[in-house]
């Protein structure tokens, strides 16, 4: 059986005393979840618990409570008092939030009240411009009455109306000299929309059209546009940069040992390399650096030991993350915090990550890091150590020298591009940290695509945008052999769909045999369709672009009716919401699913989440994935 790659992100550290940490914790990020942090919010805004919509519905519905800021400017538009402006002002900023709009609506996020990132219904648009979702809106010349500037997002990563979009912005404020003259433009260091990078290092020459101010200053408030239509914002988290955080107290001492590695052999299992008893060994080289740095590590037979101290300004819960290539262990104050030594050595990928939290008091703490790079990838050595305040939110801060980071070593990028026909490419696909080794990626000229596990008849991902990044397959030997979606991606269940009426996996269907795929369909629109046999049953399964490019439709054709079976159509950790048009909003409005009502859709609770199952009648069953 294929062993699965173990999860290396362990989020349970010492059990924190949550209550105490809240009191002692000097937050380095702020949550803007209450209207009270804004200046005189108009009556168009209210706090609600949940918000939802439908793909073609122009309004949003809500339930009472708190956590979401909803703007519903009924019967009026274009009134500046409907903008939401924070009381605080910010300079450099790290902001993350979620936004939802209904069909045809429009909003915007104005950094410092001046520089707008557009929020708009751009669903399905293939070539976005500055005025589409995620665009940097253009500036306006009052004299000529013309717009100029503006920066289109790299991708249209907008989801369908009525779904939450996750946005992350790292912003650098303009700089001024002592006389108040601007010395450098404001800059968007990074903007991601639903996980996709849409802007990187984009300079902002001045306030965009309809900004709250026409001048530029070192600080300004955050402004959320509320005068163009309904919009909801939630999980607004920001970190105002420049606050002192954890700092390394130089020097960091390093010692390099030769022949210091040992590997245990227990029967057929060999362990991750561990250091021998270093007290018995003399280092071959020692030295000091200002930050954590393993770039001098030369080969897998060397063990690299780093010791040093860091200063913590405020007591609280901190998270540490190591991104590295090779094997590493991190101790803080003599206690092991991060280590991969319990894991089997094989199957480790290209860029490992370990994360763990620790309660820290204010003041100095010591660290001890052991590192060895992987013996057969000797030219790749990296250990990047990050820290942030808080377990789940906030900005990671580097404790390492940049040259200790993983270098991007692919000198060529490979991409598969659909022409005017569908294309497909088999590859390994990473799904929940496990490689699905018999996966296929299918791309369409309509710019919606999916990946599929042929051994399990299971959908892995659907996405919009460009098709497939195959660099890890075709650069050099292709040591990963994985292909990645090049668009805004939504994870699917990854599970074989046929279950019994209670929603449990069906014994009779577990001897699933993949028969192959046929390229079928109408002329000019042929695409793969996958055939299976399970026991005495046969079926065909495939996806193709849905109507109006709203997503993908999955079709399953059974050789004979399957009245006694249920089909798993979706899984969701956060459940399903049935909507007025009969479709469901899935996983807290991450995507929609539209199943035929005659198939008796219902939600079943299972360990690990909620399942939406249907009992199709007849031989043909199809449903739509709308995103």
């Amino acid at each position, binding site marked *: 059986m294929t062993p699965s790659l173990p999860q290396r992100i362990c989020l349970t550290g010492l059990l924190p005393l949550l209550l105490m940490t809240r009191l002692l914790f000097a937050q380095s990020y702020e949550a803007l979840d209450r209207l009270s942090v804004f200046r005189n919010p108009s009556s168009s805004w209210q706090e609600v618990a949940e918000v939802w919509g439908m793909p073609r519905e122009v309004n949003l519905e809500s339930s009472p409570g708190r956590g979401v800021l909803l703007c519903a400017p009924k019967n009026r538009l274009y009134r500046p008092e409907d903008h939401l402006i924070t009381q605080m002002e910010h300079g450099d900023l790290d902001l993350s939030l979620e936004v939802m709009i209904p069909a045809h609506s429009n909003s915007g996020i104005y950094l410092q009240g001046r520089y707008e990132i557009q929020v708009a219904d751009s669903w399905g648009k293939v070539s976005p411009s500055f005025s589409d979702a995620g665009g940097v809106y253009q500036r306006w010349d009052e004299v000529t009455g013309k717009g100029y500037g503006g920066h289109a997002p790299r991708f249209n990563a907008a989801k369908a109306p009525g779904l939450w979009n996750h946005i992350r912005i790292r912003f650098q404020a303009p700089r001024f000299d002592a006389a108040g003259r601007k010395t450098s433009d404001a800059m968007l260091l990074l903007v991601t929309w639903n996980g996709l990078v849409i802007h990187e290092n984009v300079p902002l020459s001045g306030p965009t059209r309809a900004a709250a101010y026409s001048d530029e200053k070192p600080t300004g408030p955050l402004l959320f546009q509320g005068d163009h239509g309904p919009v909801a914002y939630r999980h607004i988290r920001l970190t105002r940069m420049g606050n002192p955080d954890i700092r390394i107290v130089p020097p960091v001492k390093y010692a390099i040992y030769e022949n210091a590695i040992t590997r245990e052999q227990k029967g057929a299992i060999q362990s991750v390399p561990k250091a021998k008893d270093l007290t018995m060994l003399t280092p071959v080289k020692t030295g000091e650096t200002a930050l954590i740095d393993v770039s001098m590590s030369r080969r897998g037979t060397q063990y690299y030991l780093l010791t040093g101290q860091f200063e913590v300004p405020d007591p609280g819960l901190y998270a540490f993350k190591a991104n590295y290539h090779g094997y590493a262990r991190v101790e803080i104050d003599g206690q092991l915090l991060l280590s991969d030594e319990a894991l089997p050595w094989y*199957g480790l990928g290209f860029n490992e990550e370990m994360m763990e939290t620790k309660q820290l008091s204010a003041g100095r703490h010591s660290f001890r890091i052991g590192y060895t790079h992987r013996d057969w990838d000797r030219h790749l050595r990296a250990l990047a150590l990050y820290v942030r305040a808080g377990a789940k939110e906030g900005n990671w801060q580097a404790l390492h020298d940049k040259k200790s980071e993983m270098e991007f070593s692919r000198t060529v990028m490979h991409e598969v591009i659909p022409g005017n026909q569908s294309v*497909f490419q088999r590859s390994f696909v990473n799904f929940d940290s496990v490689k699905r080794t018999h996966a*296929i990626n299918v791309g369409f000229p309509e710019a919606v695509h999916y990946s599929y596990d042929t051994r399990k008849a299971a959908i892995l991902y659907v996405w919009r945008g460009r098709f497939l990044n195959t660099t890890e397959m075709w650069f050099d030997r292709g040591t990963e052999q994985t292909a990645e979606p090049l668009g805004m991606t939504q994870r699917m269940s990854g599970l074989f769909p046929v279950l019994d009426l209670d929603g449990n996996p069906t014994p009779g269907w577990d001897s699933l045999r993949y028969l192959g795929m046929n390229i079928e369909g109408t002329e000019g629109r042929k695409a793969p369709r996958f055939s299976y046999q399970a026991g005495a049953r046969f079926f065909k399964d495939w996806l193709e672009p849905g109507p109006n490019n709203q997503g993908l439709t999955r079709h399953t054709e059974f050789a004979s009716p399957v009245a006694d079976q249920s089909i798993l159509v979706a899984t969701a950790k956060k459940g399903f919401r049935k909507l007025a048009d009969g479709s469901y909003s899935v996983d807290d409005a991450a995507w929609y699913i539209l199943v035929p009502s005659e198939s008796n859709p219902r939600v079943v609770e299972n360990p690990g989440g909620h399942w939406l199952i249907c009992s199709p009648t007849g031989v043909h069953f199809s449903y739509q994935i709308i995103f």
Partner: protein
Amino acid sequence: MKKYLLFCTLLPGFLHLLSAQSSPAEADFYTLRTLPIPDGISLEVGGLTTLPDGKLAVSTRRGEIWMVENPYTLTPYYKRFAQGMHEVLGLSWHKGALYAVQRGELTRLKDGDGDGVADAYENVANWDLAGNYHEYSYGPVFDEEDNMYLTFNVAWVGFGEAKLSKWRGWMVKVSPNGILSPIASGLRSPAGLMRNTAGALFYSENQGDWVGSGRITHLERGDFAGHASSLVWSGEPQSPMTTRIADIPDTGEPMYKAAEKVKNLKLPAVWFPHALMGISTADMLEDIHGNMGPFFRGHYFVSDQGHSKLMRMTLEKINGQYQGACFPFREGWQSGLLRLSWGADGSLFGGMTSRGWSSTGKDLFGLQRLSWNGQTPFEMANIRAMPDGFEIQFTRPVDPASASKVNSYEINSFNYQYHHHYGSPAIEPLVHKLKGILISPDRMKVRLVMSDCRRFYIHEIRPKSVRSESGEALLHDVGYYTLNQVPQGEMADLSANQLTLEQSPSGMHSHQSVIAVQPNNKKSKATPKHRTTMPEDWVAPDVELVIGTIPGMKYDLDEVLVKPGARVKLTFNNLDDDMTHNLVIVQPGTADEIGMAAFGLGVKGSQMSYVPLSNKVLFHTTLLQPETSQTIYFKAPVKPGSYDFVCTYPGHHVAMRGLLRVVP
């Protein structure tokens, strides 16, 4: 007019120099033509087969299958038949359908509507994979009952590992209805699989852990071919053997010693000595019709990916076991030669890729066609084992004078270590003495009579000074015979032998049965060209240089600067994880010459760290194992100039070099 004539006479010389990499003599008999490939097609050949209508079907590592029509003309036509598969490293045409082996699936492709594009990709069989890139899969080879044979690479985790996925390291059979069953184990990197006209299956193996050198092994059900890791699956219900990993000796003695204890350990039929006969043995092709000459009918052509060349192999059955010899054949292919297929006209197509592994041919991929021009070269056609030596069959009559001299021949034998370490140097070398030479009446055969042949050893037969009766030297003057079995039969009658036996050639003398020391910096002896301790009269070095390696057989510095006469301390770090290297400083412009001379050291070379005895060699390290270092001390030359430093391990000197610039 005079100038024009001068240019004409110079030009062939220039062209000769330019083609130095491929021996011009081979090109006199075998023409190598390059097929043009449309810009935009990454034809990284993984599979190659010729269809009944003469078209070529080419599968690539990008998962495509291209049909090449009219590959025999100057204008081949390419049409894509299939796409999107996962690294297809084997292609076969059988009973009207094309079969492709992807990493995880054996796929049968069909074009139902006849538009030249596959519309059905049927899963004949699929198997577990762990996601490790090294788990390549090859085949299929058909038998008369439509069964298909595939071979499976082990994973690479710093060494070859079979346990990550079931049946890795095995040859398996897939029945026509897709049932997979295991046949033989012990494979490591079985890139080539062939079934000959007698129905015997052979696979090619690459040097690596447990594999001292490349080789070709005949596989039968229940055989274990040597790589221990795959035995993790021998306990499975369908397994045809009960051999376990713990049963396999890991002593470093030659394989035949282990075969005494492990009854199903199958010794290779033909060893391909590493660096001399390639470094990554790949595809095998039987020449049933004598396409490369009637004297080679029934022989086999074997490709090498790393050295971009084609070799030739002969097989005979002695005491029921296959064994035979390998010979050089044709160098100079444009990239890593992975796949071979006969064209409809008897020419030989070679499909190539070198992405991920360097090859002598510098193109990233390619497709070429080799044809014999009908001239008979003077060659050793065959070497057969005799009860008391060997018999060489030549393609043309030999000149008796040269053929009857003992000094015209060099015969060495050696073996390889069998252990879990990567590769092996040639060990237990022996120089053989000839007792007698018998030339057949038609002068086409020469029987070499010896009393010191060693069963299980690889015998290097080098009739270096034998000439044809028209005075030509041999096109290739060496062959390597794997003598696992010694035939019964009559000893040679030497009573009429007129020869005077002369002293054996200088070099190593008889019966060095000590296992050679692994090339290891610690035990090298100091010579004026190789000093590993600082000379006592130096107070300190004037300059310390550190040179390492980077992937792709290169040093990590292109040039270093020293002053004339400077006292230099040079540390060479072989950072490579799987290749042996040295560093040799030579006179300006002589890197190629010394590199080729190292190649010519043959089997002895590994004992000499591949440093030829030449006054053009100034200073050198010994051969360094992967991830080891050596420091040497020398005084830089007094004469300013650009002195090459180069790795003279066979095959490396072309790319792996730099300049030691002596500048006042």
